[in-house]
């Protein structure tokens, strides 16, 4: 029995490796994606052009504008001449924000009266706009502190100090590399398994497999193991490039990493085999796995945290293996996560893998016998 399974595994690996196109598909797209998206997928906002409308002729308005000009967040500052220029500037997306300083600004400040700075922001990009508003407020507050100190105006004396743990400079690629290593491994493992049986069906070699001495159980093992192997290799390549070339930190234990990658891929392969068993053609298999993949990635907590989702939707995420894997991946890369926390996230994946693998093998056996 083991000899036969081994032969099938060898055959599977050879089919993938011999075909120039599938070899290409396994190697290049994931790497390109890792490189491009590690740096591109950033919700951070910097180098944005903004507009300034300064109607204040006094010194204070000028000082504040200089502070804004000195900030590295803004790539370019466009000076507007009148209020009628604000709407076209924002509408045509020339800048995400206009800082409006009114005529009273210097006069109010010099007489120690409160003064306003208005920010007009483009709500089409409300997330970025909020971040830009946050930056601007901190610049204005800094100016405010300096101004009050110089003029001996009494200040309140509490201060807020922030520390970002695990990623002190909030570098996005530190977050992206571990997440993408999971997502790209998922994509490869899922496409590979969902296509493997569908292709055999389409070409007609599936019948040949059936008339061979292999039992259905052996066929399933023979299809599962190569996919897991290739997925593990893929994860290793992504790990090496992510840490060595892209210089993301890896602070946790390699053993925990591989243990969770193994369980993660097994659960994905189970889903892929299931799609493969249902599909009649390769196209259906690809599209079917895409329909599974897109929601799985979106609801996994990668792009947006799970707690932002509506309460009724959150339980759905418990069914997604990627959800657990992302916690572990970020944990081992960035946080040196302890084993008991990894365990909390491994067993649900193992459970999902067990259920999907046994369902799809049941499904197969029923079809085959």
């Amino acid at each position, binding site marked *: 029995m083991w000899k036969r399974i081994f032969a099938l595994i060898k055959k599977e690996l050879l089919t993938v490796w011999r075909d120039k196109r599938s070899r290409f598909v396994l190697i290049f797209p994931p790497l390109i994606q890792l490189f491009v998206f590690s*740096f591109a997928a950033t919700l951070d906002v910097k180098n944005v052009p903004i507009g300034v409308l300064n109607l204040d002729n006094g010194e204070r308005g000028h000082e504040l504008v200089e502070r804004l000009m000195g900030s590295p967040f803004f790539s370019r500052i466009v000076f507007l001449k009148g209020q009628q220029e604000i709407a076209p500037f924002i509408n045509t997306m020339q800048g995400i924000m206009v800082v409006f300083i009114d005529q009273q600004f210097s006069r109010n400040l010099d007489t120690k009266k409160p003064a306003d700075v208005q*920010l007009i922001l483009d709500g*089409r990009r409300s997330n970025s706009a909020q971040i830009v508003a946050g930056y601007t407020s901190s610049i204005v507050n800094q100016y405010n502190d300096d101004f009050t100190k110089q003029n001996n105006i009494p200040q309140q*004396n509490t201060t807020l100090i922030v520390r970002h743990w695990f990623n002190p400079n909030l570098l*996005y690629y530190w977050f992206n590399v571990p997440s993408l290593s999971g997502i790209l491994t998922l994509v490869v493992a899922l496409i590979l398994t969902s296509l493997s049986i569908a292709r055999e069906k389409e070409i007609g070699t599936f019948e040949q497999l059936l008339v061979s001495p292999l039992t259905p159980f052996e066929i399933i093992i023979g299809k599962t193991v190569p996919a897991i192997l290739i997925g593990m290799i893929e994860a290793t390549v992504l790990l090496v490039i992510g840490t060595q070339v892209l210089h993301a930190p890896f602070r946790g234990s390699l053993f925990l990493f591989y243990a969770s990658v193994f369980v993660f891929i097994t659960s994905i392969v189970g889903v892929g085999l299931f799609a493969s068993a249902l599909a009649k053609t390769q196209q259906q298999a690809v599209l079917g796995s895409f329909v599974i993949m897109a*929601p799985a990635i979106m609801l996994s907590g990668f792009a947006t945290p799970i707690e932002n989702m509506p309460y009724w939707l959150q339980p759905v995420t418990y069914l997604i293996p990627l959800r657990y894997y992302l*916690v572990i991946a*970020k*944990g081992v890369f960035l946080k040196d996560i302890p084993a008991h926390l990894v365990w909390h996230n491994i067993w649900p994946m193992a459970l999902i893998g067990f259920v999907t693998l046994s369902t799809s093998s049941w499904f197969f056996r029923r079809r085959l016998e």
Partner: protein
Amino acid sequence: MSLSIRRTKALIVKEWYQIICDPSSILISIVLPIILLFLYGFGVSLDLNKVNIGMVMEDKNAQDFVQSFTGSSYFNVTFANDRRELVDPLLAGKIRGFVVVPSYFSAYRNYVQKAPIQVITDGGEPNTANFVYNYAAQTWGKWLVQEKMAGKISGLPLINVQPRYWFNEALKSRNFLVPGSLAIIMTLIGTTLTALVIAREWERGTMEALMATPVCIKEILLAKLIAYYLMAIVSMICCVIGTTLFYGIPLRGSLLVLIGITSVFLLPALGTGLLISTTTKNQLAASQAAQVVGFLPAYMLSGFIFEIGSMPKIIQMITYIIPARYFVRSLLSIFLVGNVWSLLIQDTLIMLAVGLVIFGITSRIIVKRLD
């Protein structure tokens, strides 16, 4: 051989039947858009409604400060006596940060020295970390105003920053995520589905069978493009209905302009699909290629979620030739602002140019292949 309208029409009808009979086409043109719209409407949200944070109160005299956090609509606060208790939840992602009021807080407040309040966030989630800090700063600001009113402190910031968000006053990320996701749906139909369908004809050999009939290759491809164009437009109209009625997102521009700009975007999208299928002629490779040059750029490089200005310079250069970048911008404007002509005309011209270049390349490759 010149193009024949009659033959092309017959081919379009054939394509149409093929679409209707193939469950996978239905899946991608109807089921997937519904799933995506649903997910972008509910699942993907950048608005933190309630962040779970921890609070360590080493100074028991700071009750009123703590109350401003527990009373805040931004936070869900769990208390701890020691910051070590909060490390595990932070590692596991159960809380996104914690606030520490140090034991010397009250003592410091009575001196010249500044009394510190610490905010620790989970840098593993940079966006959330930023928001936790921003929200904490806002809550702190509100607390200061209360303290001032109670006469406990004297000074307050003199300069007030007043942000005003146009077009999306309630700051719902859904209002920009859902219209932006239409660009992804159009890319899926225009590029991924078209690439797969044409690659399948090559792979199965039915393309040769078709070419043996009196129709010429241009008619075959044109018919396919027209069929998928029509399908995309139908899907677009369904999506608009869903977006405006179901999610209540305004459509401030006109529907006609929206369909016009969608048609313009479909030119490069369909062209890319055609180009992929003619170069790969294999479904597996076509699906991967469509993923890499179609879906993922539309998702990640279009400025739909991720800010283009923050990307490295080389990647920014790449985004200039990605049609989805212009389409996303136009979509957002048509939905949330109105017909901003100067922006729309610019985007139309660029997308047309990219589309023509792609079609130029494709037709050269096709002619070469047939010779």
